[in-house]
C-alpha cells in the first residue's frame, strides 16, 4: 500500500471562506477513504479580523498527531499566508492566486517569499470563480478544486460534501459552489504542467470506506453524554467548552431532556450535584477559570458523596490565560483543587474516540463511586477533527451505576455506612424509608454532623478507600513498545500522547529502544503499572503542555531517579519532532 502522509493548510483572512473550505476538504477526504486529523486556528477576538488557518493531516494510517511541516499550502490571502512559510516542507507545494484584483508591491505576493525548492502554482482563483458563477465569492472553492485537480483527487467526494452543505440553502447556491469548485479542477488539469502534476499525484483511496464520521473532541463528548442518557445539562459559556453546550442545547430537548444556561459556573455545578442527588444524570463542561469557581462545590461533592460529571476543557492559563490556546495545566487543580483531603476521580482522554468513551464511562463511575468525576481535555483535542468509526456505547456501559441500599435496611438506613469497599449504598429521594440528609460537614455514618477525632479519621479513610477502589474500573496505562528493556520511556497524557507516540515510533525506526506509556487515569493512578514500566526504562521522559510539569509532579516519584521533564507552553499542540529530538538527546 503506497505510503501517504500529507499535511495541507488553507490560509486566509477572515471572510475568505478559509474555514469553510477546510471543512469541505476534510469531509471530502474522509469520504474518499483517507484517515485524517484536522485542526483550525481562528482569530481570538470576536470581531475576528485576523488570520484563519486550517490544517489537515491526511494519510492511509491512523493519524495520532499533527506534523510540524506543511506539504501543501493553499493561500487565499498572501499576506496572512506569509506566516505559514517557515513551516513548509522542502518539497512543499504552494497554491496562490496569480491574478489578484490589483497590483501589489514587491514582497506582498507569496511568490516573493517561497524558497526555490518549493513548487509554486499560480492559479487565478478569483477570475475562474467569477467566470463560472459571476462572483468571486466561491474562490475558496476554486482554490480547493485546483488542489484536487493538481493532486488527481476524484471530484465526487467533493461534490457530495458541497451538496450536503449547500443544498439546505437551495439548489442554485449548491450549483454555484460546485461550478466554482469544478472551475479550479479544470484549470489544474488543463493548464498546470503535467510534469509537476505527475510528481504530486496522490494515490486514490486506499482504505475501505467504512462508517467513518468526522468528529471533533467536543462533539464526541456531547455524543457520549447523550448516549449515556444525559437528561440535564447546566453550563456557562466558556472557551473552548461552549460548543458542547450549544450542541446539547439543540439536541437535548429533542430527546426529552433540558438544558439550562446558568448564571455562572458555581450554579452550574450546584445544579449538576442536585440533579445526581435526585437520581438524574447531569453534566457541565467548563475550562480552567470555571473549574476554579466550581472548586468549593466539587469538594462538597467529595465530602457529601454526591456524583457529578464535569468536563474541563483546558486552555492556556493561569487565570483568564489564553482562551484560544491549547495547554494541559489544570491537572493540579483537577486532582488537588480545593481545601482538605478531597480526592476525586480525574480521567483524561487522548483522542476523539476516547473523548466519547470516557464521557460515557464518567457517568457510571460518578454514580458508583459517589464522587465528582472530572474529565480533562484540552483545546487541541476539543477542536480538532478526526474521522473515526462512529462510536457506540454498549448497554452495560451506560446502565445505572448507583449502588442502592438493601430494602431490608428500610428504617435503619445509614447513608454513609463504612463498608469494605468504602461505597455506602445511597438512596434517591422518592425511596420510602431511606430518608437522609447529606452535608459538607464531617458526619457520622448516619449523616449527622460530627467532629469527634476518631470519626473524622475513619470517614477520611473510608472516602479515600472508596476512591482507590475505582482503580479496578479505571482505564489502565497502555504501553506502546517493542522491547522488554528500553532506553527511553515516554509517558504522556491528553493530546500530547499522540505526539509522544509518533515520536517514539520514529525513534524506533532509527534504532532507538524507545517506548511510550499512555496514562488516562490521572487520579487515582495505577502506581504499580506505571512503576513496572518505569523499571524497564533507562530514562523516563514526560512531555507536557504545561510549565510546572504537572503529571511529572504527580507520578515522577515512582521512578528510581529524576524523570526528564519536557515542558512547553507555546499554546500550540506538542510537536512530535521536539519529543523525538529530546529522546535522541537522551540516548547520546
Amino acid at each position: 500500500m503506497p505510503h501517504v502522509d500529507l499535511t495541507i493548510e488553507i490560509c486566509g483572512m477572515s471572510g475568505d471562506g478559509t474555514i469553510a473550505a477546510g471543512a469541505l476538504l476534510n469531509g471530502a477526504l474522509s469520504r474518499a477513504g483517507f484517515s485524517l486529523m484536522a485542526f483550525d486556528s481562528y482569530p481570538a477576538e470576536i470581531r475576528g479580523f485576523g488570520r484563519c488557518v486550517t490544517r489537515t493531516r491526511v494519510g492511509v494510517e491512523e493519524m495520532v498527531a499533527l506534523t510540524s511541516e506543511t506539504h501543501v499550502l493553499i493561500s487565499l490571502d498572501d499576506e496572512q499566508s506569509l506566516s505559514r512559510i517557515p513551516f513548509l516542507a522542502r518539497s512543499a507545494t504552494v497554491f496562490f492566486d496569480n491574478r489578484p484584483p490589483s497590483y501589489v508591491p514587491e514582497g506582498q505576493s507569496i511568490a516573493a517569499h517561497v524558497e526555490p525548492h518549493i513548487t509554486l502554482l499560480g492559479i487565478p482563483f478569483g477570475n475562474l470563480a467569477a467566470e463560472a458563477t459571476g462572483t468571486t465569492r466561491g474562490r475558496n472553492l476554486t482554490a480547493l478544486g485546483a488542489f484536487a485537480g493538481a493532486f488527481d483527487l476524484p471530484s465526487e467526494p467533493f461534490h457530495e460534501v458541497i451538496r450536503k452543505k449547500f443544498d439546505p440553502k437551495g439548489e442554485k447556491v449548491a450549483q454555484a459552489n460546485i461550478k466554482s469548485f469544478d472551475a479550479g479542477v479544470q484549470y489544474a488539469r488543463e493548464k498546470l504542467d503535467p510534469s509537476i502534476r505527475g510528481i504530486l499525484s496522490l494515490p486514490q483511496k486506499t482504505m475501505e470506506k467504512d462508517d467513518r464520521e468526522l468528529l471533533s473532541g467536543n462533539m464526541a463528548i456531547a455524543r457520549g453524554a447523550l448516549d449515556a442518557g444525559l437528561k440535564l445539562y447546566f453550563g456557562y459559556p466558556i472557551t473552548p467548552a461552549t460548543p458542547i453546550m450549544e450542541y446539547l442545547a439543540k439536541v437535548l430537548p429533542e430527546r426529552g431532556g433540558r438544558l439550562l444556561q446558568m448564571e455562572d459556573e458555581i450554579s452550574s455545578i450546584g445544579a449538576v450535584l442536585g440533579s445526581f442527588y435526585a437520581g438524574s444524570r447531569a453534566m457541565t463542561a467548563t475550562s480552567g477559570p470555571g473549574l476554579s469557581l466550581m472548586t468549593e462545590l466539587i469538594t462538597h461533592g467529595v465530602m457529601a458523596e454526591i456524583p457529578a460529571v464535569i468536563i474541563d476543557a483546558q486552555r492556556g492559563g493561569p487565570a483568564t490565560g489564553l482562551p484560544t490556546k491549547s495547554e494541559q495545566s489544570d491537572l493540579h487543580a483537577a486532582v488537588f483543587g480545593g481545601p482538605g483531603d478531597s480526592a476525586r476521580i480525574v480521567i483524561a482522554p487522548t483522542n476523539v474516540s476516547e473523548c466519547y468513551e470516557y464521557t460515557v464511562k464518567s457517568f457510571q463511575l460518578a454514580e458508583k463511586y459517589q464522587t465528582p468525576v472530572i474529565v480533562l481535555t484540552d483545546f487541541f483535542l476539543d477542536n480538532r477533527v478526526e474521522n473515526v468509526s462512529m462510536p457506540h456505547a454498549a448497554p452495560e456501559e451506560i446502565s445505572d451505576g448507583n449502588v442502592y441500599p438493601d430494602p431490608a435496611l428500610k428504617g435503619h438506613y445509614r447513608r454513609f455506612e463504612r463498608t469494605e469497599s468504602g461505597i455506602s449504598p445511597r438512596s434517591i429521594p422518592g425511596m420510602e424509608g431511606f430518608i437522609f440528609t447529606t452535608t459538607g460537614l464531617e458526619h457520622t455514618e448516619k449523616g449527622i454532623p460530627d467532629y469527634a477525632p476518631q470519626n473524622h479519621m475513619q470517614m477520611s479513610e473510608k472516602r479515600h478507600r472508596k476512591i482507590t477502589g475505582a482503580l479496578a474500573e479505571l482505564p489502565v496505562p497502555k504501553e506502546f513498545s517493542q522491547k522488554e528493556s528500553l532506553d527511553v520511556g515516554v509517558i504522556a497524557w491528553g493530546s500530547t500522547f499522540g505526539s509522544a507516540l509518533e515520536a517514539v515510533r520514529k525513534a524506533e525506526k532509527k534504532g532507538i529502544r524507545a517506548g511510550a506509556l499512555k496514562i488516562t487515569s490521572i487520579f487515582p493512578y495505577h502506581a504499580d503499572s506505571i512503576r513496572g514500566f518505569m523499571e524497564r526504562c533507562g530514562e523516563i521522559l514526560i512531555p507536557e503542555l504545561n510549565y510546572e510539569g504537572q503529571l511529572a509532579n504527580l507520578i515522577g516519584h515512582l521512578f528510581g531517579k529524576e524523570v526528564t521533564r519536557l515542558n512547553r507552553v507555546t499554546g500550540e499542540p506538542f510537536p512530535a519532532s521536539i519529543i523525538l529530538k529530546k529522546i535522541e538527546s537522551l540516548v547520546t
Partner: protein
Amino acid sequence: MKTSGRILAEKVSKIKNSDVFSIRSHNLPTWCPGCGYFGIHQGLNNAIQRLELPHHKTVTVSGIGCAGRYPFFANTYGLHTVHGRALPVATGVKLANPDLTVFAVGGDGDGLGIGGGHIPHIARRDIDVTYLLFDNSIYGLTKGQPSPSSPTGFKTKASPYGTTEAPLNATLMALSYGATFVARLFAGDPDAITDAIVEGIQHKGFSFFHIYSTCVTFDKQFKTWDHLHEWVHPLSDEHDPTNLKQAMNEALEDHFSLGILYRRQKE
C-alpha cells in the same frame, strides 16, 4: 379526677401518637432557645403535614448558617450544601425529578450576600421551588457580624463604629427579579407562615418567602421580639396581590406589612 400531670401526659401521648412529629427528624434543633427559627420551623412543618406531602418525596436544600441547619431537623431528604448555593442545587433537584416537592432554605447572609446572584435567575426561570429566606439581619452562626439586611449604623464586633451601608430589601428584590409569588412573614406567627406556605407550595412556580426573625443571642438592638411585634402588621385588605407595581410600592414604602404581596396569575 385527672391530675394536671396526668392531663399533660395524655396530651403528650396524643401528640406523640399522632403524626404531627413525624415531620421532625430525630435530631433536636441546635438553635438557641428563643430563636425565631423555631417558629418558622413549626410553620413549615405544619404546611407539609397539612398538605400531606409524602416525606420521602420532599427535599430540603440549604446553605450555610443557622438557617442552613434546617434539613437536619426535618424528616425529609436533605441537602446541606455550601454557603449561598442552595438555589442552584434546588434547581437541579427539581428538574431531575419534578414529582419531588423542593424547598430551599437559608439565612439573609447566605441568600443576600454570597448567594445573592442566584436569586434573580431561579426567579426568572420560575422553577417550582419554595424558597424560605430566614431574615434576622445578622450572621449568627459565626457569632454576630452584620449582614446585607442589617440597618445602617448597626454595631457589632465586626462593625464597632456602626455599618455604613444601606440594607438590602429582600422583598423588593424578589419582586423586581420577576418572582411569581412573593410573601413576607414573621417568625412570631407560625400559623400565618403555614397558610402562606401552603399556597406557595401549590403555586406552580418559584415562591419566595421573606421571613423576619430574631437572633436572641447576638442582636439585642434591632430585630428583637419586642421590636418585631411592634413593627409588623398585616397587609391592608385593599392590597391587590395581582398588581406588581402596587406590591413593589408596598415593599418599598412599608417594610413590615405581612402577607402575600404578589402572586402572578397563571394563564
